């Protein structure tokens, strides 16, 4: 038994954790146990990888094959994206889709159908999955792809570990000619300018904005939009950066409205007005937080919630205005607030992205937070939006259901394969998935 939690340090659960890497042991294990959930590297923020019994898949991390004509990598599900990059970057290949941390497993990337700064062009992680092998509750292993066992593929990508255990997958990489990115930062003065900038740069392969969520009135929505693309200078060596560590949990009073406001203002002010350009390596561009070990401890022992929602494009502007107003007037807010314009929705049953704007913010857990978030939920759902399950630890069942209209198809698949009797997380039970 050990105290298990995910990246948000909330909730904490006394769970039995079993580490298994061999497929035949996994097979007999799932037959024996009543109810389990797969655990990758615990980089989901909420309760999607947590239950009383957890199977840790990370040690199942072998590289099985690499076809360097196609850029097709066959790899076991426990391998971390950073292991892939250490292998692929010097050979001139990069992940087609990567989230804001490289410390997640391939299984976790598929199960959350993660997305990155290029969602508007490349879509979700499942776009680069040529096929995956899934261990079902019956002990059978099925190969799924966009052409074979399509229903299982659509359910598993974005399915939050609720369809079985992903054992291995073949994923396509993309060719690069440098590990450097030409990054352009556009400083905007308010939400309107921010939206205009997103539209203007929507052909750039990568884009994301840091937004000052505590700015009010005419400054509301002011942002730093960062766009970029790989250069082609041939520099491909990759030595992972040295990390600093947050050695202990910060006392929770350190982050308060004032300190966050000061940080945000400073962060915004230090960038020159208008447009600035510089060359940065891919780690700085894609994974700024990976250079700080245990950064989640700054929110204190009680943990934090990352609240991420998305609104359909037509409702995005008004919705965001309303939400930013509520946040700014509540005084609760964070320095890691990220806004992004997403591309088209895919056909997976539970994948998060739809075409529109998404905002992600960190809130430390404190009095009044859940009331605020409930209020935000209502705005989101009323405007046709949804909450990201990979970040969630608290949303109500009906809020979830309204956001994900394909949930019934997913539930039926779970029943058909008896997945609902074997694979459950605290999240799936809370939401009746």
């Amino acid at each position: 038994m050990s105290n298990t939690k995910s990246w948000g340090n909330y909730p904490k659960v006394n769970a039995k954790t079993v580490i298994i890497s061999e497929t035949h042991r996994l097979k007999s294990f799932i037959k024996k146990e009543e109810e389990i959930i797969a655990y990758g590297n615990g980089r989901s923020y909420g309760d999607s990888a947590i239950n009383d019994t957890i199977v840790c898949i990370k040690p199942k991390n072998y590289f099985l094959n690499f076809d360097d004509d196609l850029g097709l990598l066959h790899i076991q599900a426990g391998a971390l994206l950073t292991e892939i990059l250490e292998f692929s970057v010097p050979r001139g290949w990069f992940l087609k889709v990567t989230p804001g941390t490289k410390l997640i497993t391939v299984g976790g990337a598929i199960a959350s159908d993660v997305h990155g700064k290029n969602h508007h062009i490349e879509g979700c992680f499942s776009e680069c999955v040529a096929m995956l092998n899934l261990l079902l509750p019956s002990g059978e292993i099925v190969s799924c792809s966009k052409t074979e066992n399509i229903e299982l593929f659509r359910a598993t990508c974005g399915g939050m570990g609720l369809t079985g255990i992903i054992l291995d997958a073949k994923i396509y990489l993309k060719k690069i000619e440098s590990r450097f990115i030409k990054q352009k930062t556009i400083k905007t003065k308010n939400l309107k300018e921010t939206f205009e900038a997103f539209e203007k740069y929507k052909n750039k392969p990568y884009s994301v904005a840091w937004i000052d969520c505590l700015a009010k009135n005419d400054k509301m929505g002011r942002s730093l939009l960062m766009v970029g693309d790989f250069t082609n200078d041939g520099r491909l060596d990759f030595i992972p950066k040295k990390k600093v560590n947050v050695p202990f949990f910060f006392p929770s009073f350190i982050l308060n409205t004032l300190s966050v406001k000061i940080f945000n203002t400073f962060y915004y002010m230090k960038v020159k007005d208008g447009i600035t350009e510089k060359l940065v390596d891919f780690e700085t561009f894609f994974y700024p937080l990976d250079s700080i070990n245990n950064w989640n401890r700054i929110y204190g022992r009680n943990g934090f919630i990352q609240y991420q929602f998305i609104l359909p494009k037509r409702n995005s502007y008004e919705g965001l205005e309303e939400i930013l107003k509520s946040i700014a007037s509540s005084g609760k807010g964070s320095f890691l607030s990220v806004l992004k314009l997403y591309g088209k929705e895919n056909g997976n049953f539970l994948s998060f992205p739809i075409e529109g704007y998404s905002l992600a913010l960190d809130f430390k857990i404190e009095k009044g937070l859940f009331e605020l978030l409930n209020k935000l939920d209502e705005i989101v759902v009323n405007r046709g939006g949804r909450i990201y399950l990979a970040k969630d630890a608290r949303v109500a069942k009906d809020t979830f259901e309204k956001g994900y209209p394909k949930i019934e198809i997913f539930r039926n698949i779970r029943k058909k394969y008896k997945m609902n009797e074997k694979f459950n997380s605290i999240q799936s039970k809370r939401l009746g998935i």
Partner: protein
Amino acid sequence: MKNLTQFNLNDLVSKKEYVLIIGAKSDVAMAVARKYAKEGFNLYLASRNSDTLEEFASDLKLRYECHAQCLELDILDYSSHQFFYDQLKEEVIGVISAVGYLGDQKISEKEFMEASKLIDTNFTGIVSLFNIIALDFEQRKSGFICGISSVAGDRGRKKNYIYGAAKAALSTYLSGLRNRLFSSGVHVITVKPGFIATKMTEGLDLPKRLTGTPEQVASDIYNAQKKLTNVVYTIWIWRWIMLIIRNIPEWQFKKMNI
């Protein structure tokens, strides 16, 4: 063009030096194998039932462009050791053994078979193999020999003193070997892990701050080899913990429950 680069690559790989890893299926040994492959070595991986290691070996080959060959070795089959060592096609520049057996203290108190297995796996078998390798390295006047012992060998405790005694014997053996081989330029490393989170300790409730990962042990071993360190505690804090434990007077220690 492609064939040419392929050819150069093979050439490069065959120029890499070989390291021999014993007990290769243990989590620690696997981490050591990855570390050495990453640092540019080819590997011989020896274990019992080595066929289940093949997948791991191909992972190493793919990731690090090295040779990794799996071999059979039972550390208790003493008479096979000379043949085992002679069959290696390439000279090895170093050997690392992670072989060990935690056993069951309670059973070993009642059944000598268990006690003997503990002693032979953790000590006798390694002496048998290392003796052979030491002779070769001594003649070649180069190489390194690394044995994984344990802090359990630093003082006998009722919890696991048969295992501890075997590890103590191993530490003493390695110390003597180091003394003997120093003048031949062969370096001997004794690794004394405290707790490591591995298959061996799965299910035990280990204190987080005192528990290392196989990867930490691997990089400690690599650094010890580079810097010619003799005895490594891993993680480092165990050196100080064991200093205190070794200095508790016996009249006091015998009453304690640790």
